[in-house]
């Protein structure tokens, strides 16, 4: 079986000046979108920025992003053998690539601490 998932990923530091990258990921049933992104980091490009901690427990709630325009947890969204478009959350401040600032203001490193 050589099915692939085609992940079209938004990359950049600035919402106004990003670009798209497309990666083919070997597809296996029972994988999550996060598994696919982690595969890309190991096999293609370790500079791809994603935020995650618990990997597949859906406990940390850190891996939020937009899949085909809808907000999902990347670790619970199923990887599928088709084209899938991934973007950072549009309603949060961009940090880099698929990572946005999702912490409550009181739990961020900010001017008050400096």
């Amino acid at each position: 079986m050589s099915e692939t998932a085609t992940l079209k990923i938004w990359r950049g530091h600035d919402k106004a000046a990003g670009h798209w990258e497309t990666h083919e990921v070997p597809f296996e049933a029972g994988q999550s979108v996060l598994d696919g992104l982690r595969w890309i980091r190991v096999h293609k490009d370790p500079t791809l920025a994603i935020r995650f901690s618990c990997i597949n427990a859906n406990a940390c709630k850190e891996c939020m992003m937009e899949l085909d325009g809808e907000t999902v947890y990347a670790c619970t969204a199923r990887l599928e053998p088709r084209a899938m478009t991934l973007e950072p959350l549009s309603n949060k401040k961009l940090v880099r690539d698929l990572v946005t600032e999702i912490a409550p203001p009181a739990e961020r490193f900010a001017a008050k601490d400096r």
Partner: protein
Amino acid sequence: MRVETDVLVIGSGAAGMYAAIEAARAGCRVFLIDRSLIGRGGATVMAQMTVAVALGAETPDHWSHHYQDTLTAGRGLCDEPLARLLCEAGPACINQLDAWGIGWARKDGHIAQAFAPGHDRPRCVYVDFLNTGPAVSKTLRGVINKTAGISRAGDLCVVDLATSHGEVTGAVAWHVGSGAPVTISAKATIVATGGLTRLYRRNSASANMGGDGYALALRANAPLIDMEFVQFFPIGHLAPRLIGMDPIMWDPFRYKLGGRLLNNKMEEFTDRYGVAEDGKYVITRDVGTYAILKEVEAGRGSPHGGAYLSFQHCSAEALREAFGPVIDRLAANGIDLMKMPIEVAPIAHYHMGGVAADVRMQTEVPGLLVAGEAVGGANGANRLSGNAITEALVFGQRAGITAAERVKAMRASAPADGHATLDLLRQDAPKNPPNTAEMVQSLQATMADDVGPLRTGAKLERALTRIGEFDAALGERPFGGKQAFDLSRLEWLDLRNMLTVARTVTQAALQRTESRGAHQREDFPGMVADWSVNQVVRRKGNRLDIAPARAAEMAAS
């Protein structure tokens, strides 16, 4: 950037959050930081079920019974004062969380306590359904929000502790969110960074558990203890592949419903390894891990290389009552427990070893305290189910109290001098560096294959050679850049710690020429009386010195 505080708490799991609350209540300014987001990045938020504590709510109990069980499970190696503290101070912390509104599961008006392997009576409190860790985390985070004096910041990864004149004076962190280095001066620093499970290919915890705290402490000249004892959780989920479920999810099912562990001939097999289960959940983690791996080795493993776990004898009603919505999540993954067994296999789960500390959580280095899973010794060669959360709460509380005492007793404090670390972070990456994500994966494979639960001298030697090769590939200059969320740079810093910690585990395992608890040497089967000692790891320049030493014992009374 510079920050100044009374108490710096590194890590916001149960241990770090409890420590922060305690120090702030004693009047200190506290800076609580985490490499991930506050209260979300560690093992605490992932725990599902058991918190062992002699409350006596279910059946009469006393901390001394819990203490006896802990020592027995530890196979003669527990640091007795630490183990006693865990058991004796546990009930007060659990009641405190109850008062803070955690919502421990209740039965007939009292807090419910479930039976777990290795305990002599039902002793584990929990929050339904599979919600213990999230509830602990949320409750402590809520209290922190309401406690004056605690600043919090996520995305701050500590790279090194700062020392001057033999004392720890704070730390240097890398702000993952911006790529900026941050120097933090503190009168007391508490390392509450959790365990090291990320060293292994199959592991139950989060991406942040690379053993940072052990490496930080070692570089600051604080000794580590019991590093060879990595706990594997016997029944980690193996197949079929599941989405959105914790790999250790079957533990709570076994607490509540028993379940049967079967080999590929569909026979129960744990009796061959000295523990007849008979549909009940009584096997301790070290024996369970050994039994499953030996069955696989004998050609009786399940198709993916583990054992079957079956709940086919349970009724739909019993399953639904015990697990409510979880049954639907399983159904969404195509799993009907009434119709099929699932496959399980051992998975790296917890670290018994850690930074050596006394009952005040003071390490050998003034200014440096530890708390939670980062502390070594309380659980000896094997940890009982449910002791880790209790340990995190109790040790966190103690560390907070001790830190506040130090702050009050101090007149002047030295600013943190982090120049060596700042120099490191200022460096540019070498040309064409290797892929850090791939390096992490290769290291995990080495550790899983050669430093897993079943060990031999030859495998451990091979692992040390590989670790040396990884060290050379990593070099002295961080990869990646100085921008926001540069994971190559973060992973370079992680590998620097992971390789140090991998070396301590492997070398300590090579030196211990016997089998005990979680450390099984196939070339040295059986426990040896002479090895009823702990091993202490110290840094001597660029070398590790690992020597036998007995952990503290209780004075006979």
